[in-house]
């Protein structure tokens, strides 16, 4: 996965001189998840810019450079630190096109690593994808597979508006086919059906797609049930058509995400399924999500706080 992300940035920098990267330790250190390793040597410190620990400052500087015609990518080391830069993301990046009556636009790519599961405790284990999806004006990309990550990130650099590109830390080592074609772009707002079945629709994004996939394996092996597994790929724009047409066939849906269930994005998907497929449902839409607690440090407690494939299977069996 990290190579696919690196390759996308490299190709876009070669393609367009306006693209440059900045962030904490993305240069000599190579990025805290090694996504930018080698790029400093290839492109130099002007286009691969190490910054001080100053999230609001560097995101705001990205907004300013974007207003002046550049296409900056700002790497925020983890999504947890994006909370310090929310003023720039929410008040400036997402709103300036609208507020200015369409006079300015902000072609800014914000990359950040998300997710728990590494015993990093409550301040370093957030999954805030749904929070960003809440804001009109932002595009929120959450890839689950390396090939999609490359195509979506390349597409993000072509987007004339701010894109929040969120990478799950547990997926950096994921393997998969990655197209070499430098014009391979994955369009926003197009979910991908990664597995087909007839009994239930499992919906996820980012890391939770893999839980859905493993749950589908277990349902098939242990219970003789088959599932549609849908990878949303972007949660804003959101491809509900793919979800709704699947649910109209399977008549059951489980939405899976790492984020807290209370007020989370799974609730949005569940509500939209109800609005558009209520008469096809044989059971209430289920949500499998993070438990409503700050992330604990203890390994067993952390595991209990995160959704698992077993939780997904249990939710499916409960709705039969």
């Amino acid at each position, binding site marked *: 996965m990290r190579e696919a992300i690196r390759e996308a940035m490299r190709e876009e920098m070669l393609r367009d001189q306006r693209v440059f990267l900045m962030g904490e330790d993305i240069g000599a250190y190579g990025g805290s998840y090694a996504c930018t390793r080698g790029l400093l040597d290839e492109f130099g410190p002007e286009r691969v810019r190490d910054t001080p620990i100053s999230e609001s400052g560097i995101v705001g500087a*990205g907004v300013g*450079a974007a207003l002046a015609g550049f296409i900056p990518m700002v790497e925020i080391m983890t999504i947890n630190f994006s909370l310090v830069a929310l003023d720039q993301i929410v008040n400036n990046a997402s709103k300036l096109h609208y507020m200015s009556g369409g006079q300015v636009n902000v072609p800014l790519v914000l990359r950040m690593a998300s997710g728990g599961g590494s015993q990093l405790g409550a301040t370093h284990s957030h999954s805030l994808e749904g929070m960003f999806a809440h804001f009109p004006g932002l595009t929120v990309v959450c890839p689950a597979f390396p090939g999609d990550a490359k195509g979506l990130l390349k597409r993000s650099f072509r987007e004339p508006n701010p894109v929040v590109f969120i990478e799950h830390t547990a997926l950096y080592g994921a393997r998969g086919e990655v197209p070499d074609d430098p014009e391979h772009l994955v369009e926003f707002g197009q979910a991908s059906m990664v597995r087909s079945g007839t009994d239930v629709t499992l919906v996820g994004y980012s890391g939770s797609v893999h839980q859905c996939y493993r749950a589908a394996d277990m349902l098939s092996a242990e219970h003789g049930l088959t599932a549609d597994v849908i990878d949303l790929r972007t949660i804003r724009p959101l491809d509900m058509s793919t979800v709704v047409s699947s649910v109209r066939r399977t008549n059951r849906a489980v939405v899976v995400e790492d984020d807290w269930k209370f007020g989370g994005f799974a609730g949005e998907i569940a509500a939209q399924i109800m609005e558009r497929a209520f008469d096809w449902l044989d059971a209430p839409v289920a949500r499998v999500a993070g438990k409503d607690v700050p992330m604990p440090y203890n390994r067993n407690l952390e595991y209990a706080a995160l959704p698992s494939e077993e939780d997904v299977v249990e939710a499916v069996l409960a709705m039969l």
Partner: protein
Amino acid sequence: MSVGQAIPTTVGEPPDGDLQQQFLYEMLLIRRFEEKCAEMYTRGKIRGFLHLYTGEEACAVGAINALRADDKIVTHYRDHGHALARGVEPNRIMAELFARVGGTNEGRGGSMHIFDVSRNFLGGYAIVAGHMPIATGLGLAANLSGEDWAALCIFGDGGVGEGEFHEALNLAAIWKLPVVWFCENNGYGMGVPFDDSLANDVYKIAASYQMPSVRIDGMDVLEVYSATQLALAHVREGNGPYFIEALTYRYRGHSMADPELYRTKAEVEEYRKRDAIERLKRSMIADGLLDETNYQALVARVDAEVDEAVAFADASPEPGLHTLYDHITKEYEGDAE
């Protein structure tokens, strides 16, 4: 260049008679425009928050006239004066305040968010100090593009206590960016006096980021102009950012909602004696650049323009409800290649 002290900033010859005439005209235009805004607010034509700039005109006019057309400006929410000084049409600003389609932002921005990209006026920003990192980014873009335009960032003393002030100044300093930081210190962050807000003088705080930092009389348009010229020359030569603290005063409350319980009428009157418009008028008359007849003609011209702005705004239609979703994002049209 000494750092961290109040140092003399006047450089070269004062601006010629024509330019002084222009300064006087622009300051009068801002004054009368703002007074008209207050009237329109009480008549319900302007809604929302309205922050007026009367008293501070010399800052906008002196600083912005020192810029080139390709220099870029970002400013705070008390922004009508800056837009007018940049040459944005009073008609379009008033129409924006009236929330009409003829406004600078088609009625989507309002008083605090005036934009005019055609004049490199990249916006008024209403979260205190939130635009300061943007100015850093503009400076970064100037450097990356290899061009010698500069960014002017105007903000108030209230912004100095915000973290984004410090992040923005630090980044601009370490990357040697062509940004002129222009602090309009009007003595109050809303109603809290400056002395209760900051542990040190503004220009001294800025100087600690290793950039030239000066404190000037922000009610003297000639001094503001001269100081900003000096600052721009410094940043264009690749020497990094430059900081100006201009001491000024706002005659009206923080916004139209402000009962002004935190200051006395006597204090306001004291500052009015130093009024920037009266001061320039007196010195121009003394220098033979103006007489009372010229001055009255200028006032009449300005008043006619402000009346015309109100008429234009009133005649401009409200945006149609079908445009509610316009401009959320710019349309992706595929690759430019």
